[in-house]
C-alpha cells in the first residue's frame, strides 16, 4: 500500500507564461521562432494582424543576429514572455553572443537612400521599431540583446 505524504516536488505557483528557445544560425531557422510567436499570440488572443507584425519583427531580429553577429556559439537565444494581468503584452528577447555593434551609431535608412542611392539593405532594426510598440537594443562586445514588446 502506498504511503501518504506530500509530493516530493511541489510545482511552483504558475507565473506568467515564459518560453525559451535556442535556434542555430542556419537558413530559415527564424521561421521556427515565428511558430512560437504565433502560438503565444493566439494563446493571449492577440489579433492576427498584430501577430503577423510580431512575427515579421522577430524574423528581422533573428536575421540581424544571423548576418551581423558572427556568434561564437552559432546560436541565437530567444525568450518569449506573456505579461500583464490578463496577458496584455507579448515580449520577445533575442540575444546573441556575437561581436555587437554601435546601436546608437547606425544610420537610419530611407526610401530615398534605398531607391536613389541604391542602398537597399539596413532596414532590419527600423522595421522592428516600426512594427513593435516598445523596442530596446543593447549591444556590446558581449553580444546583442533586442527586447521588444507588443501590446494586445
Amino acid at each position, binding site marked *: 500500500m502506498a504511503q501518504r505524504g506530500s509530493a516530493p516536488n511541489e510545482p511552483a505557483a504558475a507565473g506568467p507564461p515564459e518560453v525559451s528557445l535556442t535556434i542555430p544560425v542556419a*537558413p*530559415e531557422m*527564424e*521561421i*521556427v521562432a*515565428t511558430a512560437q510567436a504565433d502560438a503565444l499570440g493566439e494563446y493571449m488572443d492577440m489579433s492576427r*494582424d498584430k501577430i*503577423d*507584425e510580431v*512575427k*515579421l519583427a522577430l*524574423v*528581422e531580429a533573428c*536575421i540581424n543576429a544571423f548576418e551581423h553577429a558572427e556568434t561564437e556559439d552559432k546560436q541565437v537565444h530567444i525568450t518569449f514572455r506573456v505579461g500583464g494581468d490578463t496577458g496584455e503584452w507579448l515580449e520577445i528577447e533575442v540575444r546573441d553572443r556575437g561581436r555587437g555593434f554601435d546601436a546608437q551609431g547606425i544610420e537610419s*535608412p*530611407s*526610401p*530615398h537612400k*534605398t*531607391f536613389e542611392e*541604391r542602398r*537597399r*539593405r539596413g*532596414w*532590419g532594426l*527600423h*522595421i522592428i521599431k*516600426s*512594427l513593435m510598440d516598445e523596442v530596446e537594443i543593447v549591444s556590446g562586445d558581449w553580444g546583442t540583446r533586442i527586447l521588444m514588446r507588443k501590446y494586445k
Partner: protein
Amino acid sequence: MSETCKVSVERRGDVAVLSTDGYINNQGGEEIAREAYVELEKGVRALILNLQKTRIVNSIGISILIEVLEKVMERKAVLAFCGLTPTIDKTFRIMGLAQYAAIYPTEEEALQAVGATA
C-alpha cells in the same frame, strides 16, 4: 521544414502575373526576380506580383523586390503588387515601395489598373 517560396506565372496579354506562395526571403526573392526577368525579356509591359499566399517576408527578400522594381522602371514597364497582408503592406510602405509601385487589394483591380487584356 521548408517555407521556400514557389512562384507561378500567368500571362494576360502583355501583362504577367507572378503569384507567390510562401516565405519571401533571399531565396524567395531570387526566385521571383528570376521569373520577373524572364517575363521582361519576353517584352511584357507590366508585371503584377500577387502575394496572396505569402504571409511572411523579410527585408532581404524585399531588397530583391526593390531590385526587380528598379529593373522594371529601367525598361519603362510597370510593376504592381496585390494581395498583401496588412503587415506586408505596412512594411512595403515603410521601405518606400509604395512610392514607386502601385499596390492594389486584389489581382482583378491590379489587372484593371494596368489595362490588361484577356
